């Protein structure tokens, strides 16, 4: 196994370096020298989150200057007020009406969340600080036009179903300024969450990282001869569904609201490093999961061993049939003809139309000889196995499922509710809900361990 260059400084200090995949990341082919995209995530573990007089990382204790952070986040004309709550694993607390969850990250040599928070610039190459064990949870406090309910339970049986039941959570509640449109409000809340995520991660600037994870993937065609026998695998990542049109400030790919986006090739590191954010209709997907993308991680883990990670195609689920067909064959063409992939993993976002959109792209891949596996939700709304799937295309026969969001679930009583102030008294008691209500239980891009089993 070849090893990518390490930071000599870190190596000297004896820091554990985790290399993803076994293939060399840079090299020489013929007369061409090339340099791979190389992302270094410097992880600091956090197991305690407390208020402090300044924001700093003391060992594994993250102290947050809540006043300073509130003032920073309140500097947005679209918001009227900010409240920050610290919520801990094991605490009998429910976080209500979760809008999105963001992983604390701060780039040392580039723009943070480029195109949305930072300036438009390439992500995915360089060094990024990352905090493990902490999440920034943005809640939706607008009550006149509420989104669907999503909650996080910090204790009880549901805590184990979601990654966010086990993280220390900084919960942001923000209220809209008078006259702020829904889309403006959500854009402001998301921006606040991104700012907070960067603010927290910067606390690790001087810290010795607990581990360093390197993601290095050479340009797709540059396969060393000794690894040329490995099957080439692409990932097709649906990042938005046009079931709901994006707002002007609803940046999804480098700040672009992807309104007219056709299938686009990106490097997987760009996805891991903040180039792709979740849109505002976040049904069963979070920005946090995208930043820790489970499919990209899974393919990286196998890269150079059992497969060659050929690249990532980002797509949107289209609203009309000609757009869907166009997008499907363009996707398949990139996967088969440009990336030369033998196989592809596909995921979707949103509901039924994106589910079919993904399957159409997969069918086009299969028609070109590219083997596919798809991550699907159980689409049945009555628990019958017949209704699990909304398509049946030749060759699209390898399906993994991320569970049924319609299956009933009981939310047990809690001692306090944070976020969704308007619902707080009711939401504190025992509440009937569904798996889809539990943020992080059903992650469409595959972070979930929940699966709908046919019985």
């Amino acid at each position, binding site marked *: 196994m070849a090893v990518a260059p390490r930071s000599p400084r870190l190596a000297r200090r004896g820091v554990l370096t985790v290399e993803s995949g076994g293939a060399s990341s840079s090299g020489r082919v013929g007369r061409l020298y090339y340099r791979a995209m190389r992302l270094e995530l410097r992880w600091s573990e956090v197991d305690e989150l407390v208020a402090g007089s300044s924001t700093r990382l003391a060992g594994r204790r993250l102290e947050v200057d809540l006043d300073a952070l509130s003032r920073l986040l309140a500097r947005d004309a679209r918001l009227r007020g900010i409240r920050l709550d610290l919520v801990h694993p094991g605490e009998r607390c429910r976080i209500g009406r979760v809008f999105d969850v963001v992983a604390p990250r701060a780039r040392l040599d580039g723009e943070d969340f480029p195109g949305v928070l930072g300036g438009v610039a390439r992500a995915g190459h360089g060094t990024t600080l990352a905090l493990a064990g902490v999440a920034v949870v943005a809640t939706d406090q607008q009550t006149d036009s509420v989104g669907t309910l999503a909650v996080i339970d910090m204790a009880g049986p549901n805590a*184990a179903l979601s990654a966010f039941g086990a993280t220390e959570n900084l919960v942001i509640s923000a209220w809209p300024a008078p006259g702020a449109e829904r889309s403006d409000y959500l854009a402001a809340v998301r921006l606040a969450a991104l700012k907070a995520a960067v603010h927290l991660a910067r606390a690790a600037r001087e810290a010795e990282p607990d581990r360093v994870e390197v993601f290095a993937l050479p340009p797709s065609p540059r396969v060393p001869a000794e690894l040329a026998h490995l*099957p080439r*695998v692409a990932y097709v990542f649906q990042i938005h569904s*046009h*079931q*709901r*049109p994006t707002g002007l400030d609803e940046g999804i790919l480098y700040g672009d609201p992807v309104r007219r986006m056709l299938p686009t090739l990106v490097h997987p590191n760009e996805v891991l490093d903040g180039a792709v954010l979740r849109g505002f209709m976040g049904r069963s997907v979070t920005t946090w999961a995208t930043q820790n993308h*489970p*499919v990209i991680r*899974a*393919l990286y883990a*196998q890269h150079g061993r*059992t*497969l060659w990670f050929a690249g990532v195609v980002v797509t949107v689920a289209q*609203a009309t049939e000609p757009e869907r067909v166009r997008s499907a064959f363009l996707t398949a063409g990139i996967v088969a003809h440009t990336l030369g992939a033998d*196989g592809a*993993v596909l995921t979707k976002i949103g*509901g*039924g*139309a994106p589910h079919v959109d993904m399957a159409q792209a997969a069918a086009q891949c299969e028609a070109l000889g590219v083997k*596919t*596996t*798809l*991550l*699907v939700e*159980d*689409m*049945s*709304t*009555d*628990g*019958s*196995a*017949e*209704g*699990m*799937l*909304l*398509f*049946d295309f030749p060759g699209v026969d*390898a*399906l*993994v*499922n*991320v*569970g*049924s969001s319609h*299956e009933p679930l009981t939310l047990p009583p809690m001692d306090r509710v944070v976020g969704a102030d308007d619902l707080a008294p009711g939401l504190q008691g025992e509440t009937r809900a569904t*798996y889809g209500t539990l943020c992080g239980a059903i*992650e469409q*891009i*595959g*972070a979930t*361990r*929940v*699966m*709908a*089993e*046919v*019985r």
Partner: protein
Amino acid sequence: MASGPLRVVCFVNQFFGQLGGEEKAGVGPQVTDGAVGAARAVQQVLGEAGTVVATVICGDNYTAEQGERAVAELLALVAAARPDLVIAGPAFLAGRYGVACGALCAAVQAKLKIPAVTGMQAENPGVDLYRRQVYIVQTGAEATRMLAEVKRLIALGLKLARGEAIGAPAVEGYFARGVTRNVVTGATAADRATAMLLDKLAGRPFASEVPRPAFPSVPAPRLVKTLEGATIALVTDGGLVPRGNPDGIEALNATRYGAYSIEGKAGLEAAQYDNPHRGYDTSWVKQDPHRLVPVDVARDLEQSGAIGKLHETVYSTVGVATTLAHSARMGQEIAEKLRAAGVDAVILTST
């Protein structure tokens, strides 16, 4: 919930009840105390966990010919024995026997609220008829391995009677009932998808986690008339409703549809219509409903004689997260109404 030794009632046919072969197939329901015939295998497997308190026996032809009446008579005999658990069969590949076992187990569960288990071979018609309602353990075609198969029946039956969690079909050995349940797995979906893809690429067997849809593809019937003589109806699942949504058609998971008259209308006035559909961006069809239901163009075709007549009722529902059962029912009802009204063809617009 039962605790301690269970009272078990067995159901067998005339053959396994040792009354005789085909010549005794007309025998009506009867009951014997304790374990008789094949029920003795049940008692042997149960050991101290339970006692076969009665064996209910009935001829195959009697159950096949008497149907519900036979089931009701058998149910009364079962109830009188006050069981905690009912074991029917196993019926192996015997068709009439399998159907009787399935029907009796379903009735025992529904009417007596007592758990029941049966066993059959995959091809037994009782499997398809009752697998959704009843736990049917998979057996061989013949009784050659009776004891081993009864062991699996009893293992599942004891779990049911004790209210213990039932594992996956492959683990417990029963036919999938076609219902889904969320479980927590060891590996993430992303890891499982990657592993499955590697298997598929290498030509190794893999197990998809979602069954292919069971619904058949329906070929479009041929239009028997020319268009010039045909009555055409407009039907949509795109959510067109009159303003105020008078039928209360659901935005999601619809169970209702509406029938809306277009009599005397040259087109659809946007102000008079609305759209509750939550599965797509409805702003364009709200702006101009013809983008969903083309009454304007259809009227032109009617007037120019390109089609015989436009049917004066538009049927509409919301097609998003709608269950297969409701879709099939609504489709059938709409089709019957259209046929009764003499409609020859339908333009179905979806989204």
